[in-house]
């Protein structure tokens, strides 16, 4: 049985904050197909096109029929723990600090045998549910957990290393003026976040949902205008060392493409409130979060961006919006690389049109803000990097993977 997580006590100010260390981090280029699957929460293995056998680890030829046509494909998640090993004094610094650490050999229903990190409730002989997880170093690793829910299952020490569960963590939601921001606050509260800081820009302007937000227990309203450099740095100076999960809910959606929009002031606004906002947040909060990646139960653990799926391919109806989102996507990759030494993950949540005011004229399906927020929290609980919430996001993602040129043409029709 998993020992339930205890709400961490206040930190001893005399104790040194331990610096983050990382597990080993080399993979072959082929193995990064596993990274892609792990980032999206899929369990994919190489599969032989000729004979249909799954194989692991990644190879150039099928070990059964020697065909070189191996493709990564979602595999059955079931398996059985053949043996387990507990590492008491590992040589690697990361694991040594977290010892004892359990790993095991798992015979997959798909065929191959895999070395996996073991959930505390999975013992030798047990059937398990397999997943690929992104570890602190950003590499895909196999994880075996019980097939059915056990008490306090998500509190498992090894599982928590693979995820960014909001439980007992302190969250900053950067813009609470929007429906999205407010739904994220609610979802974080339900997920057991200990404090939720909510940024409010231009406090002199009232906004819908303000009373409810201000009355919410566990919510601390903070002044934050992410489009403004000083405001963002001022807040980081105050609470930067208390932010374990930052959810960038900066949002500025305006319709329109390139040629029928007069002047550039709307475009400048879009860039300021999305791209520059992200940049200010990253420069203000990134360094301290990276430094706090191993700071106990409530260590800094994740940075979340909510991005449009049209960051991948321009949707001319919202053409300039798409372009700014593409810039934010690119910036998120830079941030991911720069936060990695701290073991802090960057999760991008991609959406199609939302069921909000600025997508009023767009026909359904449109994503409800609540669904987006729960998808975001689910992504954190499962330790994902790329989350596609809703049918439109999912479809655009698949079409982009299949043929980006076709997607471009079709969106432009």
């Amino acid at each position, binding site marked *: 049985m998993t020992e339930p997580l205890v709400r961490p006590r206040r930190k001893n100010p005399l104790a040194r904050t331990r610096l983050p260390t990382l597990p080993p981090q080399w993979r072959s280029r082929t193995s990064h197909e596993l990274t892609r699957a792990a980032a999206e929460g899929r369990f994919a293995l190489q599969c032989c096109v000729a004979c249909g056998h799954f194989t692991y680890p990644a190879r150039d030829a099928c070990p059964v029929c020697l065909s070189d046509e191996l493709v990564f494909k979602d595999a059955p998640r079931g398996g059985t723990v053949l043996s387990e090993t507990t590492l008491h004094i590992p040589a690697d610094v990361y694991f040594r600090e977290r010892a004892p650490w359990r790993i095991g050999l798992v015979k997959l229903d798909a065929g191959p045998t895999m070395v996996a990190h073991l959930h505390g409730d999975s013992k030798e002989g047990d059937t398990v549910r397999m997943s690929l997880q992104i570890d602190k170093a950003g590499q895909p690793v196999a994880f075996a957990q019980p097939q059915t829910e056990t008490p306090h299952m998500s509190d498992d020490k090894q599982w928590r290393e693979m995820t960014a569960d909001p439980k007992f963590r302190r969250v900053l939601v950067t813009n609470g003026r929007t429906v999205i921001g407010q739904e994220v606050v609610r979802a974080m509260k339900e997920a057991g976040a200990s404090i939720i800081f909510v940024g409010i820009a*231009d*406090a*002199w*302007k*009232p906004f819908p949902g303000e009373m409810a937000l201000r009355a919410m227990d566990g919510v601390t309203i903070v*002044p934050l*205008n992410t*489009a*403004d*450099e*000083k*405001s963002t740095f001022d807040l980081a100076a105050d609470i930067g060392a208390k932010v374990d999960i930052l959810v960038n809910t900066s949002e500025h959606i305006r319709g329109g493409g390139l040629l029928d929009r007069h*002047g550039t*002031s*709307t475009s*400048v*606004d879009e860039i*300021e409130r999305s791209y520059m906002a992200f940049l200010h947040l990253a420069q203000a909060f990134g360094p301290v979060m990276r430094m706090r990646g191993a700071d106990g139960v409530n260590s800094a653990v994740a940075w979340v961006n909510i991005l449009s799926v049209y960051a991948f391919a321009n949707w001319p109806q919202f053409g300039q919006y798409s372009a700014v989102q593409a810039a934010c996507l690119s910036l998120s990759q830079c941030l991911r690389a720069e936060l990695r030494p701290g073991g802090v993950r960057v999760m991008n949540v991609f959406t199609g049109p939302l069921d909000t005011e600025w997508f009023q004229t767009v026909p359904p399906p449109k994503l409800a803000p609540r669904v987006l927020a729960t998808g975001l929290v689910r992504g954190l609980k499962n330790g994902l990097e790329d989350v596609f919430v809703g049918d439109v996001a999912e479809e655009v993602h698949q079409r982009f993977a299949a043929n980006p040129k076709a997607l471009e043409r079709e969106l432009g029709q």
Partner: protein
Amino acid sequence: MDKSPLQDFAAAIASGKVRIVDLTFTLSPDFPVIVLPPEVGQAMPMRIQRISRYDDAGPGWYWNNITLCEHTGTHFDAPIHWHTGKDLPNNAVDTLPPQDMIAPACVIDCSVEAGKDADFLLTVPIVEAWEAKHGRIPERHWVLLRTDWSKKNFRDYANLKEDGAHTPGPNAEVMRWLVHERGIIGFGTETIGTDWGQAFHLDPPLPAHHYLHGAGRYGLQCLCNLDQLPPTGAMIVSAPLKIENGSGSPLRVLALVSH
């Protein structure tokens, strides 16, 4: 050597006989700007981006880039700002006559009334009552409306409700009257605009803008410290930035008050 009036003036400033009152708000990123429906173009608030601060981007010096709207913070409205003044000569901040940048002011104190009613409207009878006490408003004078609105916190200052801003200002008749019957050089307020908060609903809409700029006159808004000015006799120095074809400009507004 003969003493010129300017030498007397310099002596008066030095001795404190003439006091300088700063009527300007600090340009800061959180100072409210005019709020328009979100689908139309918006005024940009003050933004300050650091270039360097004695650091690797400039080891010995500190400076910033700034971006802001022509109508952010304490600012000046030129006639070209409004459709009624678009065809007038010298109607932009770069062409307006420099002698208009220094002019005397009449200050009408409505702070008690505005304190009781956020929708307080300045009317002709109120100005006539003021004239009965202080004399007729002379031509080419500023009329400054004191409401003490500048003393409020930013939220109460903007005072946005579901039906828009509720801030004091002039009605249509008084603006027509001040411009055409009294020949004022301009009208100044403590609120975000020269017009009443709900002035979209007046006839014509936004009458201060309509009448002032249509007659080539000016506006000053987001003023403060009007409570330090006498009803008459203060001299206003308001020189906008010389922005090419500019519709207005943030500026430092000074009042010279003689003791």
